[in-house]
């Protein structure tokens, strides 16, 4: 079975802090994705990566950066957290098409 894990289920951070969200997959998938989910706005793609050290902007990359130093790990970085980044963050991975999601991280920025 594909397994995608995320470092935290719940996270509370202060405005201005640097925040790291980690995602790890154990199925040797090339592709990894970060989404955020907000009521009324649905799921929106932040960044994705097709290979190690590769990254592509999604639909809402502003205020975020990513890092992929190893194939199995994809990190989302909030350089200076703001209250409008309070959201549910979902990581996914895929090989040829079907995407598998992690359990999500509910981030609150106060």
């Amino acid at each position, binding site marked *: 079975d594909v397994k995608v894990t995320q470092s935290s289920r719940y996270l509370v951070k202060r405005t201005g802090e640097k925040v790291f969200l980690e995602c790890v997959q154990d199925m040797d998938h090339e592709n990894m994705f970060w989404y955020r989910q907000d009521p009324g706005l649905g*799921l929106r793609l932040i960044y*994705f990566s097709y290979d190690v050290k590769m990254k592509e902007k999604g639909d809402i990359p502003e205020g975020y950066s990513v890092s992929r130093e190893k194939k199995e790990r994809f990190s989302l970085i909030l350089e200076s957290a703001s209250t409008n980044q309070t959201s549910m963050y*979902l990581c996914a991975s*895929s090989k040829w*098409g*079907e*995407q598998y*999601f*992690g359990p*999500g991280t509910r981030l609150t920025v106060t």
Partner: protein
Amino acid sequence: GIQVEQSPPDLILQEGANSTLRCNFSDSVNNLQWFHQNPWGQLINLFYIPSGTKQNGRLSATTVATERYSLLYISSSQTTDSGVYFCAVYNNQGGKLIFGQGTELSVKP
């Protein structure tokens, strides 16, 4: 870009009832997935279905790509089926998933 519309937006069922959820998409797609988001927020894969019909227990899905729609059938619903069901499509420009707004299902005992 591709638009994905799901209907109905909300659905309330009595346990044991059957239901059909619909997903319409505005352009040709490479593939389509159905997900169930559980109360804890995790997206569970239900079907990866470019065309035809697949079945998994009480759930089945049919995609008619030429007519740009997919249907998810839930039979003999249970309270554990409650949650939000999402349809998502892959566009022809790569592996980006485009999600519908979801159908929120509530199954009452």
